[in-house]
């Protein structure tokens, strides 16, 4: 929608604006380009939902680990070699049950435990999800394909501080006897955000 009343000289494209700030930093000897390459590696290879999936699979198969995970998420994921940024001082793991569905959001910005469950998907950062999921949780989940029976209690968690959350989904009954590796393969980012349940649960 064009703004009728405030049009002025052309706003540079977001791409050109990104070029400008990157070049300005480079010119001051700050190696922005190098950092971008490193970050690309982190985003694509390290901060991936497969991390959280390993955590979930271990929690399903190792009751003592699960207990430690629920007591102190940050320490427990470190056992699997997973780290969190210094400002994520706390990881709270939210255990789903057949009649309990936990859902994560961030109404003020778009925070997540991104080193564990991966960077947030586009819809998580959209104004629609941020505005609506706290007030219209059941409706929003239904629109997203998760039509919960009325007896399921919904627990929304708004990431308004630097505590981070992840959802521990219910283990599908048909996976009895599966290895941790097999189990990890069925755990999705959306299930760890809490907007989806795993097949059969």
């Amino acid at each position, binding site marked *: 929608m064009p703004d009728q009343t405030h049009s002025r000289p052309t706003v540079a494209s977001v791409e050109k604006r990104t070029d400008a700030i990157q070049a300005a930093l480079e010119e001051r000897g700050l190696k922005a380009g190098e950092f971008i390459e490193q970050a690309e590696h982190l985003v694509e290879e390290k901060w991936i939902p497969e991390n959280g999936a390993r955590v979930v699979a271990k929690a399903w198969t190792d009751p003592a680990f699960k207990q430690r995970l629920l007591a102190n998420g940050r320490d427990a994921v470190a056992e699997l070699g997973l780290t969190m940024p210094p400002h994520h001082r706390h990881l709270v793991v939210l255990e789903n049950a057949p009649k309990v569905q936990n859902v994560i959001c961030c109404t003020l910005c778009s925070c997540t435990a991104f080193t564990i469950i991966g960077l947030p998907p*586009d819809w998580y950062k959209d104004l629609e999800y*941020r505005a609506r999921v706290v007030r219209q949780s059941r409706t929003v989940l239904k629109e997203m394909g998760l039509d919960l029976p009325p007896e399921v209690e919904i627990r929304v968690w708004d990431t308004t*501080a630097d505590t981070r959350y992840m959802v521990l989904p219910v283990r599908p009954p048909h996976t009895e006897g599966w290895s941790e590796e097999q189990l990890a393969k069925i755990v999705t980012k959306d299930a760890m955000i809490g907007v989806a349940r795993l097949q059969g649960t």
Partner: protein
Amino acid sequence: MDGMHDLGGKQGFGRIRYALDAQVFHEPWEKRVNALYGFAVKLGIFNMDEYRHAIERMEPRHYLSASYYERALTSLATLCVEKGIVTLAELEKRANGTFPLSMSSAPGRSNIPGRERFKAGDRVRVRSDYVPGHMRMPGYIRGKTGVVVSESPAYPFPDAHAHGVKAEDEPTFDVRFRSEDLWPNSSDAALVHVAVFQSYLERASDSA
């Protein structure tokens, strides 16, 4: 500040743009922006609270029309200008066009004196505080009563940390609210948990 970013419970928005294979990034520049603001934080040019607040200070029409990564870009550039790393003139010359930055900042504040320590099960009320600067209290819990479910380690107090104001670190409490108490007769039934800084809370009487 009661800004445009405070979206929780706001009505009038449409359906979620949801897809099973949703992407994190849509354009290459978005990855660069995401890296660059992290770079600036790592270099100590600004901290995460300053970063979040500079997003909140975007002109409201700009905030609402911009994508997530355009907001990140605007905050990064605003803070680099405010910290004296680069001038707006240089950025606009390099970009060959205007480069809209965020609005200026208002004063921050330090911790509330005499703040209380709460434990799981305590009933707490969110203070009716209004501040001109940064704050991590979503408007939808202002003045509302809930129950503490857990406590976090101490963090920098954002109302201070976003403004260079000295303050003690303080814990946050995950507080459980009934959606029915937040939006009586006007929400789906749910328990809504919010991570609330100690300074935003006071003890609620049981009768409340």
